């Protein structure tokens, strides 16, 4: 039933402000730097699904581009026409900036480095802040990889995400965080959203594992972490997933990348280059 919404801007990793039922009523495309007024009804050739793990998301992007070829702007999902009016897009982000997460997302890539923007999102310690950090973080690391960067471009986010998995196993959200109502009860809708965010954290770490395969790094053992969580955690409840993270997930993460190695890698990253 979700259908086309899954290939719309609302499910694209360049839009950190929306994911499924969670988010603001409007999105923001960090690629084209525009406010998405009807994110469920627009898309473009650069679309990458954030509900899929890296390999599948990129495979789907290739198929998506056969249908939506435009790489220089947003298209209407149902007509494929380029968006040419304000009904879909808004260049002025001032409305968005009244929201703390919206403000940080609109700053992405505008001020200083992108990692600074991601750090601002992380510091908000909110459901939507984490969502934006993870969504844009996936795009950031992938972009770094395509520019000959290593998986370690996501090292800081790895550490932040690992900490969140431990300190905030059941992320709380409020009524202001829901952009649509579903057919499920409100309690269940909230639980499904929580499950979705924790799974997104695991998908982010899995992404780094996938990127590390090419580098021949032991972190590559985490490439299937989200898959393992889904297969081993049982029923689709936040309690089951949180228990799996606590009992298994954190151990596997720490076995692949210890805090000591994180510090050593971080020091390497900050060494001056010739």
């Amino acid at each position, binding site marked *: *039933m979700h259908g086309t919404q899954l290939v719309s801007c609302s499910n694209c990793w360049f839009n950190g402000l929306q994911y499924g039922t969670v988010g603001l009523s409007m999105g923001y495309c960090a690629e084209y730097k525009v406010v998405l007024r009807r994110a469920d009804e627009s898309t473009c050739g650069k679309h990458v699904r954030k509900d*899929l*793990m890296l390999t599948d998301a990129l495979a789907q992007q290739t198929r998506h581009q056969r249908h939506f070829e435009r790489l220089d702007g947003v298209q209407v999902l149902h007509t494929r026409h380029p968006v040419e009016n304000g009904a879909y897009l808004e260049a002025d982000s001032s409305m968005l900036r009244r929201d703390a997460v919206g403000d940080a997302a609109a700053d992405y890539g505008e001020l200083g480095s992108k990692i600074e923007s991601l750090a601002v999102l992380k510091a908000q310690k909110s459901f939507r802040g984490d969502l934006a950090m993870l969504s844009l973080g996936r795009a950031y690391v992938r972009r770094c990889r395509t520019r000959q960067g290593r998986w370690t471009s996501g090292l800081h986010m790895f550490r932040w995400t690992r900490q969140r998995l431990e300190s905030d196993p059941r992320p709380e959200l409020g009524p202001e965080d829901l952009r649509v109502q*579903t057919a499920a009860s409100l309690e269940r809708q909230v639980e499904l959203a929580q499950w979705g965010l924790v799974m997104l954290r695991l998908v982010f770490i899995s992404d780094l594992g996938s990127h590390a395969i090419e580098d021949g790094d032991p972190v590559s053992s985490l490439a299937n972490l989200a898959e393992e969580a889904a297969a081993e955690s049982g029923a689709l409840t936040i309690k089951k997933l949180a228990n799996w993270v606590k009992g298994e997930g954190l151990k596997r993460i720490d076995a692949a990348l210890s805090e000591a190695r994180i510090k050593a890698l971080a020091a390497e990253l900050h060494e001056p280059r010739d």
Partner: protein
Amino acid sequence: MSTWKQRRDPLFRGDGEGGVQLPTPGADPSVVRHILYLDGPGRPTPYVSTTESRDVAEGFAKGGRVYQTRVPDWAPHGVVHLSRKELLSNLRGVGKGRARWPSAQQVMTARRYVEEAAEHLADFSGVVSEDLRGVVDAVFPPGRR
């Protein structure tokens, strides 16, 4: 929300003004592939998604309209009902039956979507009529909103 009952309650679908999109009876019958909309627009699928909730269907109509259908009317046309309950029963682990799929992460995500949308599927795999449009319009009558 009261429990949906097949004999009592309709199902809804949001789609274009010109009728419900045509399924492809011989297409890949994977339920997970269908629910996750893998392969994107234009991909062949033997299923038509519906929901118990008119509100959800209106959300997906986006400028089109909401069609209403009743499951007891499907069988004479060879259309099979895959209920929400059946879907949820099969969307566990790596899935069962037509919901079997290589990725548990995708199976669980599909399950999430079924729950959020109170989704049921109309399965056209067994439809052999040469007048597919006629069958779809009989199941989703254009005049019934």
